[in-house]
């Protein structure tokens, strides 16, 4: 499918457009928000500022250290996005490579790679993530690594399946008849053709990665020096926001996560419909 045709299709898909617009808004917030709002997580309020409900001064009230919740969300969007995207990059890289090589080379390589994939697929991912995060210590790069390294197995499976059908195509045979090497074929034929699928999957995996970061942070494995929505939720839940009925503290970060993940999910869903013509809206 050609690029502009793809874009046209995407633009026709309402869900995709809604998701994309939401994402653009979040990206803008993440890019420029921190420059506009002045927020230093190290500046604490006074005792009277703790857990204040929303007001003109604090649009979403204050948190347990008297800081502005709204500003914290703006600043936190960066971490959530960066972690989500970077972790996805790692897992897509591993997943796609394993999937393509496994599917294309077949035989023993396939068997070995797939058995490894199986192991990663059956290890309980959330606990595994927690264990690894505990193992490595919770700074943001470790979190990214942990989410990336635990999340590739599903992608590998999908990419492998697609590679298997892709490698039966006649243009692969044609390429071979000219004496093309495996790497040539993988790079010129297999990868470009599994790419749409990988891309659609990337979007969905990003959604999962963001959720993973939130969950890790919520469970106290996050990087507190780089506040994200997940750490905000963590502190909200841990400092009695629920029993103090400080809705302004624990609702908005959750809504932010929900919207951002939803943006990716919507887009992924739309892409899926485009990549998979059978699902296409008639």
């Amino acid at each position, binding site marked *: 499918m050609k690029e502009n045709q793809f874009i046209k299709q995407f633009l026709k898909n309402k869900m995709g457009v809604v998701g994309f617009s939401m994402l653009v808004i979040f990206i803008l917030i993440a890019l420029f928000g921190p420059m506009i709002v002045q927020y230093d997580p190290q500046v604490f309020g006074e005792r009277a500022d703790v857990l204040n409900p929303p007001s003109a001064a604090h649009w979403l009230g204050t948190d347990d250290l008297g800081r502005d919740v709204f500003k914290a969300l703006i600043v936190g969007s960066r971490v959530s996005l960066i972690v989500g995207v970077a972790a996805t990059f790692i897992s897509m890289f591993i997943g796609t490579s394993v999937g393509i090589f496994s599917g294309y080379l077949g035989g023993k390589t396939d068997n070995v790679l797939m058995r490894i994939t199986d192991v990663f697929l059956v290890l309980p991912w959330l606990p595994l993530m927690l264990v690894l995060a505990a193992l490595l*210590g919770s700074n943001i790069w470790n979190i990214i690594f942990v989410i990336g390294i635990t999340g590739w197995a599903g992608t590998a499976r999908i990419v492998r399946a697609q590679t298997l059908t892709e490698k039966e195509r006649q243009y692969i045979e044609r390429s071979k008849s000219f004496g093309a090497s495996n790497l040539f074929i993988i790079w010129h034929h297999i990868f470009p053709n599994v790419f749409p699928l990988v891309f659609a999957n990337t979007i969905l995996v990003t959604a999962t990665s963001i959720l993973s970061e939130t969950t890790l942070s919520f469970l*106290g494995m996050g990087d507190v020096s780089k506040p994200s929505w997940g750490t905000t939720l963590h*502190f909200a*839940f*841990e400092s*009695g926001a*629920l*029993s103090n009925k400080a809705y302004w503290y624990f609702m908005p970060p959750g809504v932010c996560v929900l919207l951002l993940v939803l943006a990716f999910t919507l887009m992924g869903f739309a892409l899926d419909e485009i990549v998979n013509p059978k699902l296409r809206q008639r």
Partner: protein
Amino acid sequence: FGAAQDETILKIGVKQEPDSLNPFVSWEMASFEIFMLTYDSLVKFDRNYEVVPSLATSWELSDDQLTWTFHLRDDVKWHDGEPFTSADVKYTYEAFQESEMGMYYTSLGGITAIETPDDYTVVISTDSPKANMLQNVTPILPAHIWQDQPLDSIADFEDTAMVGTGPFKFVSWDMNQQVVLDRNPDYFGQPANVDHLIYVIYANNDTMVQAIQNGEIDVALELDYVDIKSALSNENITDYAYEENGFTELAFNQSEWSGNFNQLIQNKMIRQAISYAIDKQKIVDLVYDGSSMIGSTYIPPSQGEWHYAVEGDKLRGYDPEKAISLLESEGFTSVDADGYRSNDSGDKLSFLLLSRSDNTSEVKVGQMVQSYLKAVGIELNIETVDDGVLYDRTMGEKDYDMFIWGWGGDIDPTVLLNVLTTDNIDNLNDIFYSNPEYDAIVEAQTHEMDRAKRVEMVHEAQALLYEELPYDILYYAENHQLVRNDLITGLTPTVSGAVFFANTIVNYADASFITEAAESSANSSAPAENTADSTPAESESESDGGGSSGLVIAIVVIVVIGGGFFIWQRNKSKKANENQKNEW
């Protein structure tokens, strides 16, 4: 079922679960509390932490202060009906000493021999005067049950019945759910008023507070002020606030090892500068909503006279100016673009702080410390790690400059003082602090039988630590216990301010439910066999008020949705049946 509607259950919400019910293995406060209720010690503490008789009715100390004679009660029966004798005491003390296991073992230090002239007399000899002999609350175990167990595998012994002499009998422990105890009607002391006692284990403060507000539990323990704020407006709930017998400290690496950490932290003046730079009051204000006491010396104020109160200008208050001038006088005059200081030889004031990820308050404290230090030109990097990693990094790799953690104490100050002795390096002494002067004072006070003199010595030790500053004591946390005053009566706080988990069990004996009516509304129970059975049997009886409305809702939701599904299906098939008459 002979459902006795009038049986009362005291339901106490806790966050901590016993680690084990084997006294040779266990370390947790929760276990300690349960041991106090199911077993008895020779002596125990009353509300004012005065020593009162328990299994021992009286005792004498020989003139050389080396031999103790305890006279035991002769009317005590174990929960299984066997009589209690001096042999049990001898067995218990010797078993702890020989196995060298468990939290009670160290409090038996110095005992050289135990003799039992008769069934109700115990004679204990020590090698030197033992100042904390009467602070020893080691639970006496039934020799007839434990003695066949080889000592080297005593950790594996499961006394599933937990036979003791105490006011409560152990019933069951469902992990992460509850521990259940029953009243011992034959208790030799004052038996409890309540028939059953359940510790309900909560994973989260918020849900526990919610639960006591909803009346699911009668008492909620181990809460921070921020957790309970919402409950304070509830007039049915009484808040018992108390200073924890312990402190939270900012610890500094004092290791002689010269590896991967900033040696500058071993400079006393820099440590003092750090201490001056931190606004402890604001930390307490924000993290505990002002409801904890800011820290100063090593033994917490809750230990009464043992606490040493620093006076006059020796007391280091919040004084960033002073901090800066201290740093400058140490040569840290150049300030870089970020505002961080270094000296002429290029040593930067940049430190690494470890804080425990699962303790939100400490994490917040760390963040605040970070910002205060920044204000005076000290860079602080924070890593949150879990307890295990913290332990490894402090005791093993030593690659840290500071950490935040806390200690909890005993009624006797020795235990806390011991932490920073040279002997305890590689063990409890997590910062490798070594000071012969301090060691000597701590050692001496353990043999000082004159209380006033001993207090003097303990103060001296604390003054030393305050000056040397291996630990900067940040605050003595305040803790809260909530009680449903509309349901429970008879509770009086101990001198510490706490009602339960307070080194004494008096309140368990005094607690009673206000009226049968009030109680039965929250409780309709049937006696179970010895262990509770979680598989529902077929029997009918009405469920309680709050619960049934929830159940009704659940059922209604399911019925409505299911009904909708059914109707949808029906409609479909009806439509499909039309138009079927004609033939082509």
